[in-house]
């Protein structure tokens, strides 16, 4: 008894590392995640010989296969311990730490997304693809937004899993994510303006190239890809913080609410800067 009482508690960082490792392994073994990876490989085989100047829009593949499906995985993993709440509550890690571990485990789909997007970029560079109106830096920003989407979807799922109690919430969250994205990108059929850019870029996933109805002229939409990337990174931070707030108490809860407000303010600024760029559409 004395030995047990006298043993020092593990520091929070070590506990977080251990929990994050456990959650990452659970994530990597989840059937939906494995299905998403298989779909990505299938997609890679399918587009291998089909890369043109709009190749960066193929980032929709990781955004859906490990991002949207990751929202379902995140929600399920978060809720998987809800039936053993009493036992989990006795563990030497509070809810905030467990949620933070789940958020860190979202780096697993992020790594897969990064790998896929890197392959896409290297393959496009190796192929004789036509010259694009997007600069190399902007192309990298657009591609990286696909990686951020493959982390953001899972983080959104963790947040939904923490804040909702009804089964099927993960899928409802996925429907909301896709609805938001489609609604935002529907402004591509409207004339070029800052207001339409605001409608398009407020979505967590934005398309940057589109065409007229007859598919004859492909053009690049206005706005700043790098500031939009900053905006979606901040949305990821918002989702992770909102997930942790649910379990926090006392001073820690107040601090997390303050961080949430600051991140929201920064996200608004980043979105404003993304929209402030020239809205003119440039032929690709």
């Amino acid at each position, binding site marked *: 008894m004395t030995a047990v009482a006298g043993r020092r508690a593990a520091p929070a960082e070590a506990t977080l590392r251990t929990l994050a490792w456990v959650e990452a392994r659970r994530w990597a073994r989840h059937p*939906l995640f494995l299905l998403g990876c298989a779909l990505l490989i299938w997609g890679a085989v399918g587009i291998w010989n089909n890369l043109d100047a709009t190749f960066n829009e193929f980032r929709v593949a990781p955004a859906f296969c490990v991002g*949207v499906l990751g929202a*379902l995985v995140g929600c399920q993993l978060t809720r998987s311990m809800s039936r053993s709440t009493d036992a989990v509550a006795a563990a030497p890690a509070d809810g905030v730490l467990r949620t933070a571990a789940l958020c860190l485990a979202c780096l697993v789909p992020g790594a897969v997304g990064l790998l896929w997007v890197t392959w896409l970029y290297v393959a496009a560079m190796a192929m004789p693809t036509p010259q694009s109106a997007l600069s190399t830096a902007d192309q990298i920003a657009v591609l990286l937004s696909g990686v951020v989407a493959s982390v953001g979807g899972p983080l959104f799922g963790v947040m939904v899993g923490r804040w909702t109690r009804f*089964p*099927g919430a993960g*899928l409802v969250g*996925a*429907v909301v994510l896709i*609805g938001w994205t*489609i609604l935002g990108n529907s402004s591509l059929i409207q004339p070029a303006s800052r207001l339409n850019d605001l409608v398009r870029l407020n979505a967590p996933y934005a398309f940057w190239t589109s065409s007229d109805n007859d598919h004859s002229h492909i053009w690049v939409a206005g706005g700043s890809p790098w500031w939009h990337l900053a905006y979606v990174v901040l949305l990821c931070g918002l989702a992770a913080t909102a997930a942790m707030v649910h379990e926090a108490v006392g001073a820690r809860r107040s601090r997390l609410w303050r961080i949430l407000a600051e991140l929201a303010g920064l996200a608004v600024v980043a979105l404003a800067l993304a929209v402030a760029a020239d809205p003119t559409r440039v032929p690709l």
Partner: protein
Amino acid sequence: MIPRGVDRAVVGGTSALGVAILAACVVLADSPPLVYLRLALVALAVSAAFVLDDAATAAVDAVPRTRRRRTADRLLAVAVPLTVWGVGIAVFQLRTPATPAAGLLVEGAGALTVAVAAAAVLRWAGRAEPGEIAATVVGGTMLALIVFDLPSWWPVPLFPRDAGWPASTALWSGLGVASAVVVVLASADPYRPSRPVGMRSAHVPWLAWSGGDTEPDGDGRSSPGSSPRWWVCRR
């Protein structure tokens, strides 16, 4: 309208999401926004997938009411998402006559039946609450088909936009009928004997030794109080 035992929060909540999306489509869109209509259908399919969830399966399986009959009772709850879909499409067609209403109605009915069939199969496999997995499989597949185009070699569009409506309607009709058959087959009671009541059981020698109930109308089991005599005979 929702039978007892069905999770009203899930069925009502997801149907309400479908109502919200359909209402937004009716109010805001001038031409058929098929993508949004189908997002509403995903929410309604999720609703249908949870209809067969029963946390008290172990207890309910013992009541003198067949699983098929209980399934039929629960399927009344599917009327909620089905009605939402039907009314939504009808209202949208009143506003926009170009809406392919018949095709969309068949598509909706087919998708809901497929969701129920997936849940029925999982329940048959031993899951008391198959809704979460069935909803994930059916809803995830539908979302993928909304976001991505099918390969060019695929002959029939599942969610057509401009062309291919007759083929798609035929496909969803077939899927709906096949799913309904699956629901009926997968709702058979696993513990109920298949022979009709009153049929004589097969001859089992040790029942005769034990002096059990071997009358023509009996069930072949020993009557109370007469059971452990077989060892007396053998000795």
